[in-house]
């Protein structure tokens, strides 16, 4: 299968995603330039972390207008897999591919540390390699990761089981102290109704090797690989 990692002006984690996929999972990966149209066959497009356009107006607000995003929206609408990590998650929300918005951390401070998240659903291409309730230890690093959605949207998220990961403590419990940014319902990541677009604040790519403190992040990427394998060698989209 083939991955595309978009480089926006101000992206910082594109190399981390690239290296994680290439070195740890032996995947084919290409960088995609934000000014180009989306062309070529890809199974999964990754919007990496960082500070696209400096996040100067709102995180993700300006990147969603990058030329490549038109293609990403079409790709997603046709069922292609799209993964947004941190700033990528913010961009996907701004672009309307995912519900809700990410606002300033409740502490008003940028926060960088390792957290635990719990896999809430496993019937998606991004979580299928895991077990329901499984804990993953992943790094977070963001200033605007507080997830918000209005009550109706939230209800829909519950009903459709779109909340894929929640912040929990080491024992797997959702507690206010275990929630690093004050997210609504401790939400760390959600998918769309079609379950082919997923955004999360933690960085799986920075937890891909034992020497970096753990390899729990590989669960997310290997889920995608597994899902694509099951679907056959064919790309999701021609």
């Amino acid at each position, binding site marked *: 299968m083939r991955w595309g990692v978009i480089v926006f*002006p*101000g*992206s*910082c*984690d594109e*190399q*981390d995603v690239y*290296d*994680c996929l290439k070195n740890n999972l032996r995947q084919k990966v290409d960088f995609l330039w934000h*000014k180009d149209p989306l062309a070529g066959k890809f199974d999964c497009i990754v919007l990496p*972390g*960082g*500070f696209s*356009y*400096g*996040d*100067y107006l709102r995180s993700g607000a300006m990147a969603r207008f990058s030329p490549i995003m038109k293609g990403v929206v079409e790709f997603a609408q046709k069922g292609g897999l799209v993964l947004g990590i941190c700033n990528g998650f913010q961009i996907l929300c701004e672009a309307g591919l995912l519900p809700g918005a990410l606002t300033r951390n409740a502490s008003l*401070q*940028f*926060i*960088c*540390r*390792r957290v635990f998240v719990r896999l809430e659903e496993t019937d998606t291409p991004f979580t299928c390699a895991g077990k329901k309730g499984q804990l993953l230890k992943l*790094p977070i*690093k963001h*200033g605007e990761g507080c997830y918000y959605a209005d009550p109706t949207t939230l209800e829909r998220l519950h009903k459709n089981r779109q909340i894929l990961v929640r912040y929990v403590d080491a024992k797997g419990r959702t507690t206010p102290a275990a929630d690093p940014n004050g997210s609504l319902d401790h939400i760390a990541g959600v998918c769309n109704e079609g379950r082919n677009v997923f955004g999360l604040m933690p*960085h799986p*790519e*920075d937890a*891909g*090797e034992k*020497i*970096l*403190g753990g390899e729990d992040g590989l669960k997310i990427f290997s889920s995608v690989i597994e899902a694509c394998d099951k679907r056959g060698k064919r790309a999701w989209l021609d």
Partner: protein
Amino acid sequence: MARLSAKQFPQPPVSADTIASHGFSEEEYRRIVQILEREPNFTELGVFSVMWSEHCSYKSSKVHLKLLPTDGPAVLQGPGENAGIVDIGNGLAVVFKMESHNHPSFIEPYQGAATGVGGILRDIFTMGARPIASLNSLRFGAIDHPRTPYLLSGVVAGIGGYGNCVGVPTVGGELFFDESYNANILVNAFTLGIAEKKRIFTGKAKGVGNPLIYVGAKTGRDGIHGATMASEAFSEESEKRRPTVQVGDPFTEKLLLEACLELMKGDCLVGIQDMGAAGLTSSAAEMAARGGTGVELDLSRVPLRERGMTPYEMLLSESQERMLLVAKKGKEEQVKRVFERWDLDAVVVGKVTRDRLFRAFFDGAEVVRIPVAALTSEAPVYTRPAERPQSQDDVQRLDLEKIEEPADLGAALKRLLDSPNVASKEWVFRQYDHFVRSNTVVAPGADAAVIRIKGTEKGLALTVDGNGRYCYLDPYVGGILAVAEAARNLACVGARPIGLSDCLNFGSPERPDVMWQFSQVVQGMRDGCIALGVPVVSGNVSFYNETDGVPIYPTPTVAMVGLLPQVARHVTPWFKSPGDIVVLLGRSREELGGSEYLKVIHGLAKGTPPWIDLRLERAVQHSCLKAIDKGILHSAHDLSEGGLGVALAECCISGPEKPLGARVEPREMMRGDARLFGESQSRIIVSLKEKDLNRLREIAEKEGAPMQVIGEVGGSRLVVHPLIRLPVDELKSIWSSSLERRLRDAR
């Protein structure tokens, strides 16, 4: 943008007043007239003032800095370029430097610190290296001083705000509070980058006729006279100069970084330098000096952000996120294309000339014509008077008999762990991205940070250290200790030092007592470097850190870089498993002078700092390193502020998992407080399996390092028999919450 014409800009006259307000002595002005064989015009006066400022010319420090050892088999570039370079094998080199941004950070903490980070990043990528790790060394006034929480929060947010946005991990640093810094905080920023050895770029203007190209942000009236501001003590007057504060734009920096690195892959570039202090003037003049050439600038082409800027302002502006490069003639369009891809301006603003003159034109008229050498190599150099102040004797007098030993040493340990100088710095470093680039093997919170070098088995260790209190009590010894502690911190993770960069933060060089401190510290650092075999490859001097005639503690900060041949073998400070044996490498003496204990418990900054025997230091470090090479150590942690008691507590509580207790019984016979909190140097606590003890003994014996089995890991308490017996959970909660709680309470 409305531009002035030459007619609209008559040069203001040069008078005795303007000469004085540009900071020149009469002697210096006479020299200018002699060099030019005429009176300078107003713009030229400005150019001389920034280039001859302390900040750019190192006029007071040069004679001393020559003493520092700068050579080594792996050193590719010592001081003199934008940053130092050391070979690390595999065709790779590391490029690193530290810079101070003290004055701007005091005036506007967020932006001052942010632009400090921006500046040091540019120093690194200007040489062709991708920045991969940063450190920051911070000094603030007493934590209960009304301005401290504001300054600290602003500085930390600024460092994070800039570094995080550019995508360079901040992997370590230090933070120290003392009244001595109440009105003069220190913000020293360090960055390390990695480059291919064959693709290193320098700031040389070579090749007559080659174009000078301006890239990056537009020029505004930011920070005009920043370099002179950094060369002055604070006063009400300098407070008034506030509007010169620069605002950082990390997004533009990120684009500039990527565009420059992309350009460097091709073959367009001859030389490149960032526009830092003294902006366009210093970058152009320094590049010409290194290239043995001249430069000609056409100021009418400089991209401007504000209306009506004068040549004087364009030449002296310190607007951030700008670079000056020399390209091969004919490659102009290629350069522009690269920058266009990243949405950045690239404008030809001049060319390299043969005449060794620094010339600037504006609207067709020549406004500056000065020999390059007069601005660089021939700038004044002073051997300033230096004298040990009489009061030094008094400062060093400490009668231990009069220091009462606390009845409850456990309570004293708790107070020390609660001291912001000893407490966990997590409140700070959790605001810094330390994961980005996925190289971070040991994050902040250990003796040194460790990052791996992708594509190799190697790793780099980084640390920054320097105790101003020690230097105040004895600047010579303090200088040695700064170097020794940094190297010891590297040894604790298993790295051998390959080079260091430093910032020397002092009061006014015009004071003999300060110059004495300066020369003593430099001599101490030199002796430390020679003994431990570490070259100084770059650095920075910050003078005039004083307010109303009171200088800060003399504060060298030493950022040292070490290499690990096998990054997988690194060691961390905290205890790993119950049953492990705890060993103390080194020797303890009855030394309390300058200790954190004396300050926190008795309110004293007195005595002489701990003594150091550099042969013993080397033996201890080598023992630790060899034991790590052999893979027998489970943990290693050096003893610093707070001595054995604090170090043991940190071994118990500083790990990412649940705290582990220990029971130890050190054998030295001395008063209990000295035994627990004395800061004798050259000591490391290690833990290992009992079966490996003999191998450690053999190593230590061979190296000539004393070693003492002092106890065992296990249980839920820290027991230092017979002095202390405390639950580790309690220690952890004090130590880890102190900083945040104190900052909150201070509001």
